[in-house]
């Protein structure tokens, strides 16, 4: 159980967790397109609602999702400020404040209603983008299922000699060993700390040197693991993707197709909603 507990995967049993990972990849791409299709107030309201709906459906705690938004606050503030101050429109909200700069130069602050709307829309767009992708993919799909899905989706590229299977196998193995190596690092660090290693004090060079007793055993064991895995795979006659069958066969179910169609409908809906000019429409 611990071995998949890295990245953001949140184990739960929700309709989104159960979905075919290929469908989820397609849904994510479609959802990203939808966020960029939105132009007016109605569309953005619908977008926000859909993000909330997906979150509830995924059974990922709201707290976790809000926490993942936190690092974006700087970017969100910055985008909003630029939009508020730089958009030129027709409905001026402020009197023309003028701030003297140097010499005869002045900076004229003019805030337009359009600027405020644009800022709001950008925030909603970025937040929905983040929630959509994390709820549809990172929180609900294990990295290994994801590579599996990508391998299948890109398999047509095999025709033009792209080694899709090998790339996917390498990615899967790398992903599989990240938590193992992290565990191992922790263990070796503890073992060296038990012998008095000090990783936190001293200058840069001293600290880098203190890491050697961790890095060397880590590398040795990583190489050993790699050799062992390679032998184990050869013993099972692994010779690449040709004719290989799978333990977990991905099944595209009716519900998966339905979900994709639903999202396509949502996109089409947004496309038409864009023409209903209520309150404000982005240019």
């Amino acid at each position: 159980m611990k071995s998949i507990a890295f990245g953001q995967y949140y184990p739960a049993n929700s309709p989104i967790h159960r979905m075919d990972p290929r469908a989820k990849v397609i849904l994510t791409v479609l959802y990203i397109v939808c966020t960029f299709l939105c132009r007016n107030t109605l569309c953005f309201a619908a977008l926000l609602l859909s993000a909330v709906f997906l979150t509830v459906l995924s059974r990922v705690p709201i707290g976790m999702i809000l926490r993942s938004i936190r690092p974006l606050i700087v970017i969100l503030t910055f985008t909003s400020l630029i939009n508020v101050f730089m958009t030129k429109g027709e409905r001026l909200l402020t009197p023309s404040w003028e701030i003297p700069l140097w010499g005869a130069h002045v900076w004229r602050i003019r805030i337009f209603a359009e600027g405020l709307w644009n800022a709001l829309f950008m925030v909603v767009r970025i937040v929905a983008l983040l929630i959509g992708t994390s709820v549809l993919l990172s929180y609900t799909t294990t990295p290994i299922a994801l590579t599996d899905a990508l391998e299948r989706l890109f398999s047509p590229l095999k025709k033009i000699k792209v080694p899709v299977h090998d790339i996917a196998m390498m990615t899967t193995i790398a992903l599989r060993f990240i938590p193992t190596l992290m565990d191992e690092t922790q263990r070796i660090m503890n073992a060296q700390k038990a012998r008095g290693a000090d990783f936190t004090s001293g200058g840069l060079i001293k600290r880098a040197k203190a890491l050697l007793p961790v890095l060397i055993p880590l590398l040795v064991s990583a190489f050993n693991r790699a050799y062992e895995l390679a032998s184990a795979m050869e013993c099972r006659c692994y010779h690449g993707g040709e004719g290989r069958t799978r333990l977990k066969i991905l099944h595209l179910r009716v519900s998966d197709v339905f979900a994709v169609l639903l999202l396509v409908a949502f996109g089409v809906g947004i496309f038409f909603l864009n023409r209903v000019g209520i309150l404000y429409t982005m240019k």
Partner: protein
Amino acid sequence: MDKLCLEHIGYTYSVGTPFEYTALDDVTAHIRDDRITGVIGHTGSGKSTMMMLLNGLVKPTKGKVYLDGYDINSTAKELYSDWLKRPEYQNMRKSTAKKAIKAEVQRRKRGLCFRVGLVMQYPEYQLFEETVYKDIAYGPKNMGLSEEEIRERVLYGARFSGLSDDLLEKSPFDLSGGQKRRVAIAGVIAMKPEVLVLDEPAAGLDPLGREQIFNEIRQYQRSTHSTVIIVSHSMEDMAEYCDDMIVLAHSKAIAEGTTAEVFAQISMLDEVGLDIPQITQLIRMLRKRGIDVPENVYTVDRAVELLRDHYQALKGSQT
């Protein structure tokens, strides 16, 4: 006297994530000076976690760990009010005394891993130096000892863990598994810790290797009179080599006392999923067949002795 004392220890991994796991739950245990204490429990019962608490590698989520009566995780702030009354700090200015207390706490924290030497589970994966000598010297070097003293310590460690001198200049990566394990043990013994903790020192070794390692540990304890803690899930080894025992099951300490006291509760050990020593099972079966021998026999030597007596008595009554 109690060397180490755990009071109502709780430890939870990954607090606040979906992978939260309570590895230790309200564990209270005492480890006596100048004895070999065995910590026994099934896999996943929290033994390794408990050992990492003893030298401050991890801090308990709840409860306290005392080494010679000193709470190893105490901070200077917690100690000010108490220690300012001590004679050595009383005639200092308050700010100087506080600084001195802070320095002392820091010093104790840093010295803790040298006082409680921990050999982790599968320690052979921690070796990194070019030669066995240098690897054993890593701990003493971190203690800031002189070159001369380090040399003395390395030979001391190597002797107790049964490494011959010709191995010292070899690369640790060229050794066999059992030899690597010894190098790792020597690296901790070389720090001359007051408490030596060995987490599953014999795991994965052949029977002969097991016996040798345990004998060396016993010899080490008997000649240094230090406190030794051995973790294992094998009752057979524990019965043979430990003076005291602590039994862990499902994150809780369910029994402690001398080996004889703990083995007297054998039915309980049965329930927590530990294998009872084969010799004990044999004696139980003999009793069921009506042979009059005492119930709690857990080493082969004792069993041989008892059965011989029984046989003599039987022969005596026949003639």
